[in-house]
């Protein structure tokens, strides 16, 4: 067996083992078993790094190892499961393992003293296991299964503090929203399976290339699969679960709801890009572009530090999705990787801030103040220098400032959308979405930094108690902040303005297998041409965004309140997330529940009670009727009637029966006389 497959097996099954150990024995183990999960994930990280090193040494864009076994075989119906290890897999594995290890380490202190500490680590391991399944799978079946398991572990971790109703609700919402997306995914799988008869990527790819499924059907299959991605990557209109998911512990948010799980949708689209038809890709691009802009307009008014980051994540995921839609799927994957680093870091940073706030509030016996509300912060810069500087680095990265990773990947995406609009002028909205979102991103990220760390403290009585977080928590911050610099992605080159480097070499764009789709070369050419204008515009908008934030929240030259009042409708819409949740509530949840109630009523109180029991009642009534007819009519009327009439006749006749012999003889005499008279008359 290939060494890569062997490593993959370890990477896949170790977290599962850790999950089983922790869920059953975690409580009884020393340190409540956190070392089991951490050990497993660190070994995973080591193996991923080994694989990564192997990939860099071979430096081969076509590197690819595959291995499967027969899972179900019914003769003709065969399903094979297996692993596919190529450069995308290895890169993604490293990202997952890295962020996952950071979360495991971060959680040691963050979750300290929680009564369900071992359960928490078990769930984290379950997540790592299922996420690795998504990454390693070489077929849609294992992908779908891991997909759902990721949904489950996310649901469990979001609802980890289940005693809080909002947390439990958020967990359920996440699972349900993902399930809605998964329906589309499932239908997509069924369409492909029906046409091709296999679930493995390679069979599907060659099937599409051979034209076994084409045209509208293929578009439907692509859109169906994309629905899965929409659910997982929280694209509009299925984005509603991600902001609520912030009810979970912050390391979980960093791991799943910023870096890995939500990126699974993008990962899938990257994986399956060659079989998505151009028509489906347009749909993908619009959904992604719209989500990018839409979410960032919400993020600019949120006051909860995690909510800002959550909407920022939705927006960035929209970027990636849009990029896949415009054909620049390598750029999408690139952004996935860089975003994973800096966004996870931002979440850890916010976690560190919240942790500090929480402890400070706890010391002051203040249980009213919301430790996540940025309006209660300010001036933390001196108190938490490591957190501040690492978050600042990541903010530069996400805002698209040169010398940071985000600049490169975002630029590639914007170039992609610009080139797409060049080729198809009717889709001019896509770059508008992209640049608009870039502007807002820079704005709200710096707003977050200024509100949290700069200015004078909003709660001066608290500031004394704010302390830098322990090493377990600052270590991930420093590491990930370091990884937000451009250099790690452009080696062996040092040009901070070009994404040219190892990444773009090993992850080579493949031409779509769908007939009529533009070749990878044509797309790359277009991106190359759009590179410079895209860079200039993006620098301009990022600068403008930062400037605005600086003026509004640091210098206070422009009053945020005044603008809020001026555009009060827009402000209210943004603050209330465009009322999407309310719309769902109004037009989906409530009607469905009402309908369910109606159906249940129909089923039980009408159908069963009147129709089914009605049959019984009718039978009873009918039997009664027949019984009446039988007794009153036949028996009493006719049968007994004969007897009764005889009786009545007897009653009349008995009067003759005087009981006196002489009378009888007299009658006899009369009779004789009568006979004689009749005789004589005849």
């Amino acid at each position, binding site marked *: 067996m290939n060494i890569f497959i062997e490593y993959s097996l370890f990477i896949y099954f170790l977290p599962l083992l850790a999950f089983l150990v922790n869920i059953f024995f975690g409580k009884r183990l020393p340190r409540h078993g956190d070392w089991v999960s951490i050990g497993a994930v660190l070994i995973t990280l080591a193996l991923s790094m080994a694989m990564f090193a192997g990939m860099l040494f071979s430096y081969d864009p076509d590197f690819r190892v595959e291995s499967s076994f027969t*899972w179900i075989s019914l003769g003709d119906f065969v399903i094979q499961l297996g692993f596919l290890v190529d450069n995308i897999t290895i890169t993604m594995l490293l990202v997952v393992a890295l962020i996952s290890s950071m979360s495991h380490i971060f959680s040691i202190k963050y979750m300290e003293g929680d009564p369900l500490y071992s359960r928490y680590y078990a769930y984290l391991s379950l997540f790592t296991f299922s996420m690795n399944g998504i990454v390693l799978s070489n077929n849609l079946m294992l992908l779908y299964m891991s997909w759902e398991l990721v949904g489950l572990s996310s649901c469990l971790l979001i609802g980890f503090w289940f005693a809080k109703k909002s947390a439990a609700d958020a967990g*359920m919402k996440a699972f349900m929203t993902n399930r809605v997306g998964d*329906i589309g995914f499932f239908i997509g799988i*069924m369409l492909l*399976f029906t046409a091709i008869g296999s679930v493995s990527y390679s069979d599907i790819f060659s099937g599409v290339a051979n034209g076994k499924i084409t045209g509208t059907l293929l578009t439907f299959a692509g859109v169906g699969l994309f629905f899965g991605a929409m659910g997982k990557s929280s694209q509009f209109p299925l984005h509603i679960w991600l902001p609520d998911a912030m009810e979970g512990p912050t390391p979980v948010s960093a791991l799943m709801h910023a870096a890995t799980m939500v990126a699974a949708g993008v990962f899938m689209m990257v994986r399956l890009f060659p079989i998505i038809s151009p028509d489906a890709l347009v749909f993908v691009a619009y959904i992604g572009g719209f989500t990018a802009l839409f979410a960032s307009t919400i993020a600019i008014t949120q006051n909860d530090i995690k909510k800002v980051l959550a909407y920022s994540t939705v927006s960035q995921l929209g970027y990636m999705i849009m990029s896949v839609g415009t054909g620049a799927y390598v750029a999408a994957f690139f952004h996935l990787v860089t975003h994973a680093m800096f966004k996870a870091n931002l979440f850890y940073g916010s976690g560190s801030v919240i942790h500090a706030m929480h402890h400070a509030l706890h010391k002051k016996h203040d249980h009213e103040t919301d430790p996540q509300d940025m309006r209660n912060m300010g001036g933390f810069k001196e108190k938490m220098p490591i957190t501040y500087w690492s978050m600042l680095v990541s903010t530069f990265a996400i805002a698209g400032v040169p010398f940071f990773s985000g600049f490169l990947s975002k630029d590639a995406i914007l170039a992609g959308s610009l080139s797409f609009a060049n080729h198809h002028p009717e889709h001019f909205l896509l770059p508008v979405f992209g640049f608009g979102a870039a502007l807002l991103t820079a704005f709200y990220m710096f707003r977050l930094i200024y509100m949290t760390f700069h200015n004078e403290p909003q709660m001066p009585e608290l500031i004394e108690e704010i302390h830098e977080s322990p090493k377990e928590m600052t270590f991930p911050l420093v590491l990930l902040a370091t990884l937000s610099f451009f250099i790690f992605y452009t080696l062996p080159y040092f040009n901070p303005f070009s994404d040219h480097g190892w990444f773009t070499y090993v992850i080579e764009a493949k031409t779509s297998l769908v007939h009529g789709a533009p070749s990878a070369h044509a797309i790359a050419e277009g991106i190359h041409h759009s590179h410079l204008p895209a860079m200039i515009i993006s620098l301009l908008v990022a600068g403008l965004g930062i400037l605005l934030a600086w003026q509004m929240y640091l210098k206070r030259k422009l009053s945020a309140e005044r603008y809020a009042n001026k555009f009060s409708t827009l402000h209210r819409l943004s603050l209330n997330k465009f009322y999407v949740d309310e719309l769902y509530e109004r037009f989906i949840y409530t009607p469905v529940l009402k309908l*369910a109630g109606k*159906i249940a009523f129909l*089923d039980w109180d009408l*159908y069963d009670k009147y129709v089914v029991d009605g049959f019984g009642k009718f039978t009873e009534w009918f039997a009664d009727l027949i019984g009446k007819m039988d007794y009153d009519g036949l028996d009493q009327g006719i049968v007994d009637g004969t007897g009764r009439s005889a009786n009545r006749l007897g009653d009349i006749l008995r009067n003759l029966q005087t009981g006196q012999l002489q009378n009888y003889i007299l009658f006899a005499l009369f009779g004789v006389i009568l006979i004689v008279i009749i005789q004589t008359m005849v």
Partner: protein
Amino acid sequence: MVSNILSWLIWLPVAGMVAILLIPRNKEEVIKIVAAVSTGLQLWLAIMLWLNFDSASGSFQFMENVAWIPSFNISYALGVDGLSLPMIILTPLLSFLCIFVSWKIDRGVKGYFALFLLLDTGMIGVFLALDFFLFFVFWELMLLPMYFLIGMWGGPQREYAAIKFFLYTLVGSVLMLIAILALYFTCGNTFSIPELIEAAPGALEGSIWWGMSAIKVIWILLFVGFAIKIPVFPFHTWLPLAHVEAPTAVSVILAGVLLKMGIYGILRINYPMLPDAVFWFAGALAVLGLINVIWGAMCALAQTDLKKLVAYSSINHMGFAMLGMAAVIAASGLHGENYIAAQAGITGAVFQMFNHGTISAMLFILVGVIYDRAHHRDIDGFGGLARQMPVYAGVTMVAFMAGLGLPGLSGFISEFMCFMGAFPVFRVIVIISTLGIVLNAAYFLSAYKRIFFGELNEKYSGLSEIDGRELFTLIPLAVITLILGVYPGPFLNMIKETMSVLIDQVVLIGNFAVIP
């Protein structure tokens, strides 16, 4: 290997019943132990049968055949194949576990366990009988103890529920009896199922009864008879009532075994004997499956009684199996000889049948556990139990997740196969019924959330954790669900040959030319 193993399987519980009847009324422990031993032995026999079963063959094995009433060609014929084997394993397993589920029964212990063992015999007999008359006898035999078990040990509305169940099923039985007699007289005066499978398609061809093809008439009679058991909408309303009113163990048997008899009957009798009608009816079957899926899920979503929710989930789950069954016609020339879909669908249906047996059994046992403690089943009446009863919450999580079809648990694979199979033929129906997946998740999760999450209801801060006996009844089922969910290969290998034979019987013998 025991000789005449099938007869042993059938009559062991009766032996146990006789033994119980001989034990004095007040020795309750002894009665329970005898019941446990006899079902335990039966389970052991079933496992022996499974180990000795030749899964490479698709025909009947371990056949026994003794003339019973020779003047009517009735014989005592038994046999097992890949279709009945899963149920032969499931039935003793559930019976054995149910003895422990009902360990706390406090009145009429002797009668309860005696009837329970009689019920066991009836169920096993239905799955093993290869003679139509014998089949019918066991079918009816099973009805009687069920009636008394619901009617005497059930909940507040038990008499109403028992009568309703009895009448409903009896209507089905009557229709079935007519069909049996019709087959007997038209197909060479025989009750033997293998002979009828050979003879019926030819003998019935072309005959018209009351302006309708005889094939259709017999199909409808048999189908309604079995549909009431499945239960297919609109014959389903006995089920929530009977499930809710029955004692826990009886609910388990009802959901775990009795519902399967409908599907088993259709696959055993309707499909091979009336292949022509399969083509005629497959569309309707798929539509009925869709209705079951959506209707069951919607009704479950609206329930506040946990047991009723689980009962409606059964209706929902059986819908998936019906979709899978309808997929068999994919293998015909009309649909491009798509054997992949046909195999997926019909094997998925049988697999779903087995999985629903284990999963719904788990669900009902879990409902029983909480009812024994809180004395009510109102979903909104709990809250925050996850902290009070963490083990119970964990096991319930596994069961609910299995119920909503989470990958890694067996329910997912069978639902998936049913969908995959039905999709090429009934595309729109399957797409609509995938909504059931979401609704499924909605009702299970919201119930879970309302019972286990949130603040702990003060009233239940004294609730005791699930005990060893209850865990003993749940863990085997959970383990089976998990193993089959991860690696269904062995199970599917066991049934696949029989399913191939069945598909061929339908699509090769069946003539999909329009029958009048």
